[in-house]
């Protein structure tokens, strides 16, 4: 189970342990945390929601894409859902590869893909209200009903 949605705090080390392999020369770990200030606006807490079975499939897809692009890569991703406070860990991505450059690149690829295709949403709760966040500016429309190839590769 390298790709999971978690309802409780993520054990970072357990995600890293999943990608340990004898051929690896590097493991990169990305830890996404809840930020307090966004453009000066103070977040009190976040609530993440997922379409869980599809989210797991899409995380698996990202893992498969990485293994295709970066030879010898192993990938593990856990994303948390529910109420998260400031500084809480929302997502952990671990990638191991034979050489370090690939581990950095592939890990960056994973987080950018999560923000494109994995059905997870966050609701921001501020002092003066709350709002579901779409893509950052609500600028992306999908006239064909799904992400275009260009959207997926940017």
């Amino acid at each position, binding site marked *: 189970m390298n790709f999971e949605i978690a309802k409780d705090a993520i054990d970072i080390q357990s995600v890293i342990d999943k990608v340990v392999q004898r051929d690896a020369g590097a493991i990169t770990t990305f830890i996404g945390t809840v930020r307090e200030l966004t453009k000066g606006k103070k977040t009190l807490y976040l609530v993440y929601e997922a379409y869980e079975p599809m989210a797991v499939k899409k995380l698996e897809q990202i893992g498969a894409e990485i293994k295709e692009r970066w030879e010898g890569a192993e990938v593990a991703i856990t994303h948390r859902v529910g109420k998260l406070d400031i500084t809480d860990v929302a997502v952990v991505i671990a990638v191991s590869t034979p050489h370090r450059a690939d581990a950095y690149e592939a890990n960056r690829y994973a987080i950018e893909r*999560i923000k494109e295709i994995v059905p*997870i*949403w966050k609701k921001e709760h501020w002092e003066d209200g709350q709002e579901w966040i779409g893509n950052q500016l609500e600028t*992306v429309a*999908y006239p064909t*009903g799904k992400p275009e190839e260009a959207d997926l590769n940017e």
Partner: protein
Amino acid sequence: MNKILFFAHLRDEAGEESISLDAEGKTVEELKQMVAEQYQMKRLDSVMTAINEEFAPGDEVIKAGDVIAFIPPVSGG
């Protein structure tokens, strides 16, 4: 019959997590229009659609028993 799932702001607008209706033979785009009218939803243009947990284009025809999910722009990570 088909199960239609709502998430994030769509769930708030619909007031329900899911509905059941017969969408067999309709395209994804036709279903979107129908649901948008019925629930007076805005912003369905930017909403993606999944059929049985896989993204589907607007012209895909829905079959009996398909589970449809409307996927607003995602914000995980």
